[in-house]
């Protein structure tokens, strides 16, 4: 176990965390620059593989950073990278939330929170379209995305039904040479 390496991992990801507006996916180019170009920790191909695998796994996108830590220094690397990537942003959020709560009765804070609602809706929809653009490499996959969206939007059932169905259908489509 290399203490200096762990320290450097902590430094890189803690700094990124404090400035990670827009979450992990928005930060992807900068993570790539740090991990592949500046520190030379892994090849381009390994970085792409880590991105694909962490997107195939369930959970917050931050697990990509955890996997980079794992690849660099095993369990210790995973723990250090994960905590470094989470702690600054969570502490900032916690502090801001507490400050806002202290003034939660004021009209200004209520209007601020009201104003954030449409911002969140627009951004979530936009990130769905961005994901479609990356994921849907053929017409069938576009149809899968739209069908899943309709199911989730207009049914109260667990979205896992739609998610499981399109995953299964993709395997069937592959079998008949339609992918």
């Amino acid at each position, binding site marked *: 176990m290399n203490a200096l390496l762990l320290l450097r991992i902590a430094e890189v990801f803690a700094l990124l965390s404090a400035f990670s507006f827009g979450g992990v996916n928005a930060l992807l180019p900068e993570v790539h620059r740090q991990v592949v170009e500046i520190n030379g920790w892994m090849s381009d191909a390994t970085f792409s593989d880590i991105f694909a695998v962490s997107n195939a796994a369930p959970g917050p996108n931050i697990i990509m950073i955890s996997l980079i830590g794992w690849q660099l220094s095993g369990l210790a690397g995973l723990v250090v990278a994960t905590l470094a990537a989470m702690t600054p942003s969570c502490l900032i959020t916690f502090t801001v939330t507490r400050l806002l709560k202290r003034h939660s009765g004021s009209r200004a804070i209520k209007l601020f929170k009201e104003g954030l609602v449409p911002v969140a809706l627009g951004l979530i929809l936009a990130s769905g379209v961005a994901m479609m653009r990356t994921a849907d490499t053929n017409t069938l996959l576009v149809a899968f995305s739209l069908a899943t969206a309709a199911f989730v939007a207009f049914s109260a059932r667990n979205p896992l039904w739609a998610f499981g169905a*399109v995953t299964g259908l993709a395997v069937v489509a592959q079998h008949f040479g339609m992918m």
Partner: protein
Amino acid sequence: MLQAGFTLSPSFMHTEAPLSAAGRVITNRELFLGFLKIGLLGFGGIAPWARHVIVEERKWLTDAEFASMVGLGQVLPGPSTMNASVMIGDRFKGVPGVLMCLSGQLAVPLLVVTGLWLLYGHYALVPEVKAAVMGGAAGAAGLVMGTAIKMARKIQPAPLALLVGAAIFAAIGLLRWPLVPVVLLAVPLSIIAAVLEKRA
């Protein structure tokens, strides 16, 4: 003691935690288990699953409260849903609640992702595996879009709010403008819209 008023006006006293949207007290155990499920389901990111479990299934928050937290999470550094989970933990159980929400959402995914990474070398070239991963990614994209549409249906934004949401979607999703300047510009405009429509 159940006091229904606390759901509407979050308490000024830190000793009494607010109740859930369904008027219940939320325990640390429930926070951990709820977020364990969110992490376990969270294919393609956890935002749609967080809404499903928190709003639809367990009724901890209303759609509008959840959207407001994700919106605030968006303008702060860090993943927006993880930021929202910090707010949710703090709202119901303070610092221990925050730790429950964070550890709950990461516990299973960290095990799964390292397991997948170890297996990946062996199975990446099997066509069925590749097809399943592609199908899953297409489903995840649909999931995220469907969640936004459903939230909009439930919240029924006022006309100007709808306009602001549509403009942000067009700027980021269609024109692919950079996120940070768009959000920095959109938040004040959205607040002005809220003032004009007297939403508070």
